[in-house]
């Protein structure tokens, strides 16, 4: 087999799996799962093989997909550090989650369908990762959207799930609207869609886009805003938790939402400083907002969802601050520990018979020890406790803010870190510690092995992800693009462990302190709480936080209402003005004229004769009257 074929196989294996499952093996659960899991695991193996064979340098394989005039769209695969790393994450974390799903979804009647959708999603995600041009990226972007739609709405007979999937899709579509316009703008100037070509051109002539550069950048950022759920398009992500938990883990924690950040990193050369400022602020704001909301959520998955939002905000902020490498680094570690957390939550939910309210849980530590330990590792990693992976990546972002001398954002980032530690430990104490608060919690027991082993695998990554040198690979990728001063050669393990403190000690220190503050506050409030003490203390603030700052209501009142109104008006015009008035008048008028004219035909000979003579007179007058 030729080496060029490998990425293609890697990409299309999941699609084939999805196709075969849909067409042939819907009846046989085992076969379906086997196909789907097989596809992604082989994908993982192939990804490793690719890295082994070709290393991290950039290469492209492409076919012409569409060519009309100067619109040349390739179907191309771009392999470089960025995409290869992403490949590893997607297939790696994906494999784990696939296997986990086999246990989690065991009793569901849509089992095969679930795996088909998962494989479709994997295909789309791999497509995004490997895309070498804008349109292809957009294509898979949309496909990711639709597979997410299918997975969120997996239990479509539940109204809430059906609505959530719709909302997710539409919100994403709003982002895509901007994305599409951005692509159009870029193409109109550059005349190509290929990333490499565009980058070349930008390198040759930085002022290529002129005045439209910022606008184009921001439009493209809209796409990321939708997928990565940045303010103000963040509303769909918490609702998306209506999907099965593995889906939340895979899509809404590890991969799909990361696509936005990935895309920003992919095209980071496009953004002007002004655009980057906007991006960083939106990221920072989202991080803070989501963290605040998470503090007052009671649904275990929603807390994790807002936490995801908040972390994504971090990443976007990092990109905005010029730290694409840091963003990707955090993306990677976040994929590990957030998947871990979600799968842990899934295990809990599974054990609790689909009860998700944390205040109905408690003292699960004894009942589910493995899940407990793995969840704890995830929590620590998320909170950025050294030496867990999250510490390194988050520190990289804080350091980026520090180095960029953007102190307002640095402050925001730190306060987010405080809040993160706070709400995560709130969750931790309420769920695992404390008293048993319900019958389900009393009867809970550990999940089966097929669900536990993936957790264990992820624990390893969450633990050591920070020191594997991932950041250096990214740094190398972006060094050319942003003239980073990161060294080319690899560091030793020890250097890696100490890197935060050598690089930006102040940031690292403040980060650790922030985490500590968060932890202590949470312990003080929740270690033994029966219900949420904060609710009464914060008053309206708490209600606002619990109600997610009323964003859904605001949208309801604006975007949706406006469209609804437009629809009503158009419909009214259609049925009354066009159909009723125009057609009605034409029809009625014709009919009436016919009936009126007919009255002339009285049947009376004399009238006829008279009209005859009248006619003659008129004709005469017309011809000879003058």
């Amino acid at each position, binding site marked *: 087999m030729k080496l060029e074929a490998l990425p293609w196989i890697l990409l299309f294996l999941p699609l084939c799996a999805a196709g075969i499952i849909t067409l042939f093996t819907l009846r046989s659960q085992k076969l379906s799962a086997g196909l789907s899991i097989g596809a992604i695991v082989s994908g993982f193996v192939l990804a490793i093989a690719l890295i082994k064979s070709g290393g991290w340098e950039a290469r492209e394989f492409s076919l012409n997909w569409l060519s009309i005039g100067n619109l040349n769209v390739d179907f191309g695969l771009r392999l470089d550090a960025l995409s290869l790393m992403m490949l590893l994450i997607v297939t790696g974390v994906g494999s784990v989650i696939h296997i986990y799903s086999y246990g989690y979804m065991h009793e569901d009647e849509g089992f095969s369908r679930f795996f088909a959708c998962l494989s479709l999603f994997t295909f789309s995600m791999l497509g995004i990762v490997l895309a070498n041009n804008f349109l292809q990226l957009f294509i898979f972007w949309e496909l990711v959207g639709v597979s997410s739609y299918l997975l969120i709405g997996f239990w479509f007979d539940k109204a809430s799930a059906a609505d959530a999937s719709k909302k997710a899709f539409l919100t994403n579509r709003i982002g895509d609207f901007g994305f599409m316009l951005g692509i159009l703008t870029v193409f109109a100037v550059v005349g190509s869609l290929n990333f490499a070509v565009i980058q070349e051109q930008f390198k040759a002539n930085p002022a290529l886009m002129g005045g439209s550069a910022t606008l184009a950048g921001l439009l493209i950022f809209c796409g990321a805003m939708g997928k990565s759920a940045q303010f103000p398009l963040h509303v769909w992500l918490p609702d998306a938790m209506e999907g099965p938990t593995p889906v939340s883990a895979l899509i809404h924690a590890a991969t799909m939402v990361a696509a936005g950040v990935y895309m920003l990193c992919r095209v980071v050369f496009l953004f002007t400083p002004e655009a980057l400022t906007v991006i960083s602020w939106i990221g920072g704001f989202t991080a803070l907002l989501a963290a605040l909301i998470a503090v007052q959520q009671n649904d275990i998955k929603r807390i994790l969802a807002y936490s995801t939002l908040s972390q994504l905000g971090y990443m976007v902020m990092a990109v905005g601050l010029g730290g694409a490498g840091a963003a990707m680094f955090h993306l990677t570690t976040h994929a590990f520990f957030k998947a871990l957390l979600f799968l842990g939550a899934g295990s809990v939910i599974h054990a609790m018979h689909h009860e998700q309210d944390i205040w109905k849980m408690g003292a699960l530590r004894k009942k589910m020890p493995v899940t407990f330990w793995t969840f704890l590792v995830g929590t620590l990693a998320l909170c950025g406790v050294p030496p867990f992976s999250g510490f390194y990546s988050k520190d990289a972002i804080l350091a980026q803010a520090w180095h960029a001398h953007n102190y307002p954002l640095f402050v925001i980032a730190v306060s987010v870190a405080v809040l993160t530690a706070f709400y995560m430990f709130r969750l931790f104490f309420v769920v695992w510690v404390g008293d048993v608060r319900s019958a389900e919690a009393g009867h809970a027991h550990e999940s089966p092995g097929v669900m536990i082993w993936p957790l264990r695998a992820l624990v390893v990554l969450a633990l050591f992800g920070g020191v594997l040198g991932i950041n250096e690979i990214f740094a190398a990728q972006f060094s050319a693009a942003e003239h980073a001063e990161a060294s080319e050669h690899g560091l030793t393990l020890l250097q890696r462990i100490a890197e935060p403190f050598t690089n930006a000690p102040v940031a690292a220190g403040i980060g650790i302190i922030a985490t500590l503050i968060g932890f202590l506050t949470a312990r003080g409030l929740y270690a033994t709480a029966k219900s949420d003490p904060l609710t009464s203390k914060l008053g309206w603030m708490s209600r606002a936080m619990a109600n997610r700052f009323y964003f859904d209501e605001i949208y309801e009142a604006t975007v949706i209402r406006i469209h609804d109104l437009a629809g009503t008006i158009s419909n009214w015009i259609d049925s009354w003005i066009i159909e009723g008035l125009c057609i009605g008048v034409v029809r009625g008028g014709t*009919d009436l004229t016919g009936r009126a004219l007919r009255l*002339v035909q009285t049947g009376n*000979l004399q009238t006829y004769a008279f009209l005859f003579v009248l*006619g003659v007179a008129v004709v005469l007058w017309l011809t000879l009257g003058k």
Partner: protein
Amino acid sequence: MSLEISVVALGLIVLLADLWLPAERKRMLGYSAAAALLLLFLNTFTSHCSCSLAEGPDNMTSAGMFIQDGLAVFFKRFFLLAAVLVLVMAVEFSDRIGAGVSEYYSLIVFALAGMLFAASANDFVMLFAAIELITITFYVLTSFQRGRVRSLEAGVKYLILGALSSAFMVYGIALIWGTTGKFNFQELAQVAGKFAANRVFLFGVVFFLVGLGFKIAAFPFQMWTPDVYEGAPTPTTAFLAVGSKATGFVLLLRFLFTAIPDVAMHWNKLLIIVSGITILYGNLCALPQRNLKRILGYSSIAHAGYVLLGVAALTTAGESAVLYYLAGYLFTVLAAFAVIALVMRHLNSEDLAGLAGLNQRSPLLAATLTLAMVSLAGIPPLAGFFGKFLLLKAVIEQGPANHGYYCLAFTALAGVIISLYYYFGVIRAIYWSKETPDLSPIEISKPMKMAVCFCMAGMFYLGLFPGALINYAAQVVKSLK
């Protein structure tokens, strides 16, 4: 002239044969007459016949009154064919007529003779005699069902209004002759230019056109049409709709384009207005109509308007379109009336409800009537579509010169759209009536079946393979100048 003599002789033979024939053989008489006419029709295509290919003004006989040019031959064939079909229809209809069936056949033949003469008329006197022969015959034919008040009423209406129009026409002829001193069309054509500004002459022309307008049922001389169509026996109506109307058109063409071409050129405005209003009037009035024969009456007004489009264009393209359209109209209308004659045979009225369940009673008739309606509505692939296409083309061709023609074209289109409704209403009545009171099969005699099938074939032929007739018509109209 042997054709005309043969036809008149045939009429006499039919009259006489009646004296000796027993009552049960009378059907055969009608068929024989039809067969004889068919032979005469076919004979027009053979080169031996004196009337077939002998064309051109050289062949004028009887002091130039009788002209046997291409146009005349075209219309003679047209009338013969129509008469054959009408005769077959009349045989089918005979049990409703009661006494005098043979006279009915012979009168049809005499009316045909009048039409044949009219087709060749090249002189006002001749024209007058021929037209009166047709008209007076039709007075009788219309009121032939003496048992029915409606038939008599229709006869009287046709009589009074026909006489009125005759009076106008005669007065017009008097004035035209008085000013120019010419009865002959060719001679008139040579001097007509001089009189283009003579108002008495123009007055005469208008009066004459009034007479022709009555024949073709053009607005505002269309009042009689629905009543007479409804009241007359169905074969008469059919002959009236096809033969009488075509006579009007052949005379109109001859008069306008042979006799007074220089004057006619200035009359496009009048023709446009008349044609437009006729189309709209016919179609609008037909909309709320429930009586099938009245629908066809109004529709025949509308179709007169369509044909007038071709006249109004004042070009050879328009003239040949007129011929083409009339040919298509012949098959279509005769097919429709044949079905009506058969279906409504035992009903007192011709209400649309009588068509209910026709598709089960006789699929052939149902299909025929459907196709006839579709063709009248001007929908491919039937004759009506191509005819309308040619007419529109002729009119639009004149558009750049006079924008009134564009308006006329759009008026015609509006008419077509309106007409869709009542034509489709007929189709709906056949296939999708709720009530189906009578489902007894309809018996159709062989000749009638053949006639109906022939009409259908004609509609399809003219719609799909228009080439031959177009060439023929284009060649024929050359003889007008």
